[in-house]
């Protein structure tokens, strides 16, 4: 019997002895409306891949821009990237439920990207050549450190702030997806115990 089977067997046994029938009956009567979808066993992991998906919040241009951007932030390598993980669809879902303030802040950041693209290249970000997209992103990707000579900051780094806000949403969407979990190496098992801690010889903890 595998460890997981052992745990399940224990759970079933435990549940039987845990509660007398009178209490168990009342617990069965717990209103399902007072359970979260997760507690009710709802699996929403396939929802975003449904055929005929349409954005709830983003318009077509914003959605396409987000797909292009997410593919640059987390590209496919030897593992799938953000585009395959449908991060645009997840971000759209979350934004649709967000406050107007948060929605506005996101659109402002996406709009900033397009604005800078049009200012520098006379066209919106999604239409740029890959090389130009890369150049533009690179100019925003690293925070401007204070001057090495004077120690003074050149002022608020607006471009980096917008880049960072978009990047964080994309990273959250990617690493919380099933593809993202696999990217981190997770094998899908819910437990890997027991925790063994440091097993190095005394004083050699590297």
């Amino acid at each position, binding site marked *: 019997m595998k460890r997981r089977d052992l745990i399940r067997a224990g759970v079933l046994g435990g549940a039987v002895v845990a509660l007398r029938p009178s209490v168990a009956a009342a*617990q069965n009567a717990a209103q399902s409306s007072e359970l979260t979808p997760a507690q009710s066993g709802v699996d929403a992991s396939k929802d975003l891949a449904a055929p005929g998906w349409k954005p709830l919040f983003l318009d077509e241009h914003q959605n396409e821009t987000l797909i292009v951007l997410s593919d640059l932030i987390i590209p496919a390598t030897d593992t799938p990237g953000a585009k395959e993980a449908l991060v645009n669809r997840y971000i759209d879902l979350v934004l649709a439920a967000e406050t107007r303030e948060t929605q506005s802040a996101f659109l402002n950041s996406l709009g900033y990207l397009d604005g800078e693209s049009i200012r520098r290249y006379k066209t919106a970000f999604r239409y740029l050549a890959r090389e130009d997209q890369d150049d533009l992103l690179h100019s925003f990707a690293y925070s401007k450190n204070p001057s090495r000579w004077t120690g003074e900051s050149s002022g608020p780094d607006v471009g980096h702030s917008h880049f960072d806000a978009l990047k964080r949403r994309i990273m959250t969407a990617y690493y919380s997806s099933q593809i993202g979990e696999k990217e981190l190496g997770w094998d899908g098992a819910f437990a890997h115990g027991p*925790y063994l801690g440091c097993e190095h010889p005394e004083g050699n903890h590297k």
Partner: protein
Amino acid sequence: MSGNLMGQDPLLQTYDAVVVGSGATGGWAAKQLAEAGLKVALLEAGRAVTPKEFTEHMPAYKLKYRDHSPEILRTRPVQKQCYACMEYNYEWFVNDLENPYSTPTGKPFTWQRLRILGGRSLVWGRQSYRMSDSDFKAASRDGYGDDWPIAYADMAPYYDIVEKYVGISGAAEGNEMLPDGQFLPPMKMSCGEIQLRDRVKATFGRTVTIGRVAIITENHNGRLACHYCGPCERGCMTFSYFSSPFTTVKDAVASGNCTVITNAVVSHVNMDDGSNKARGVTYVDRLTRQVKEVRAKSVILCAQAMESTRILLNSSTREYPNGLANSSGALGRYLMDHVTGGGASGRLPDFKALPNANEPARPNGIYVPRFRNTPSSPKHSRFIRGYGYQGGSSAQFNFNAEGYGTTLKHAVREGVYGVSLGAFGESLARWDNYVAIDPNLKDAWGIPALHINMTHGDNEAALMEDAGASAAEMLEAAGAKDIHVQANVETPGMAIHELGTARMGNDPKKSVLNSFNQTHDVKNVFVMDGASFVSSACQNPTLSMMAITVRGCANLIDRFRKNEV
């Protein structure tokens, strides 16, 4: 409603005791009294809970918003401030729209709570530390406030009882501020934690130990050892962490002497006319809003510190116009919650271990017992009392990596070996930190709600300032780089260690309860939860709360046997 005692209508009986609240303390009260042969009604404001709704093994990608749901904030803007209120389990937490409270302008308080069988024991942090004799006699040592009417020696036998039953894993250290207890084998430390422990001991003489935690590391009392899946706050299919529904409440029901009544939102204690004795409590059915009464020879409030006090404040009579058992005027006063916000974090560059998504998830950290203002250390010039730290060190994925593209993807997986310490400091008992009834505010059941007035003071701020600096110097001694220091004072309530408001004491003019949690004024009314604390110490309080309950119950059982109730 459930757990019908011997098939009778639970509302037509007169119980020996009605226990209000089914969390850590209420569960113990029900177990102790019922197993002693007393007839007990255990009232819980929320619904029952079943292991079928546990979600600790569900990955986030199966959730609609992958545990980033903005929708929770609509009904639980306060509760969402709790780390344990998640898309998985938010229904366990109260709906803030139905459970209001008020605070003065500029004095926020965050009140994080559950209404469900087991209460916060379903999601608690499980850290379990004894208070020391120095804590019980703190006022005698530094002149501030009042001593407890009990000493460590009075509590030690009850700590033993609770620890043996609950199952506390931990290591004995012989530390003067953190008495050792009845421990199951300790969880293991990581490499970084061992280095921190050894260098802090060598440099400062301070103790770093593995957290003492109410999670069993070997099979215990019919429960299975922890399998290290990680998120205890979503439930535990093996009942490896301590929560009352599957331990104490289960035992109480199994005795045949306990009737569990769920969805019972208690509004007030009822008094027998002219006798100065309580005859039970009134509750509003959470679902139907029907008003019902439970009769009992004794009333045991274990509803959570401020909820128990709220019930007494809402139970005013002609004899007690300012709240039942409040002849002292101390009811509602001396509200405490450990101060947090001081600490430090950094990275240990010498450690090359990569983060591993398949590493067993240890649901526990390390602990640094208080080292300021102890019997063997000099008196600090800027503050009294002290703080302890919780923390940890491990390889973590680097979600803060700079850049983008392939470089970013690699950097995330390369990770960083982090180390951190965060302080919990003593919250001084102050008269002007209080709860009172807000005359203009009622909850969804028509029960007058609380006005909470609490701030942390200069001493708490000085504690957190010192905690930030001391954490940084300890991390530096451990070899940490890029150390980030925090010396903030978090909003009161953030520690979720609310204490006081019905404190115990020997003087009925200055306290609400005697040393056995019996109200001075009404001899068959008891408050057996955190409300009874005289001072907060800096240790996580639930273990002490449970031990105080068991001690109070032992005394009450004795009184029943002597026919004094």
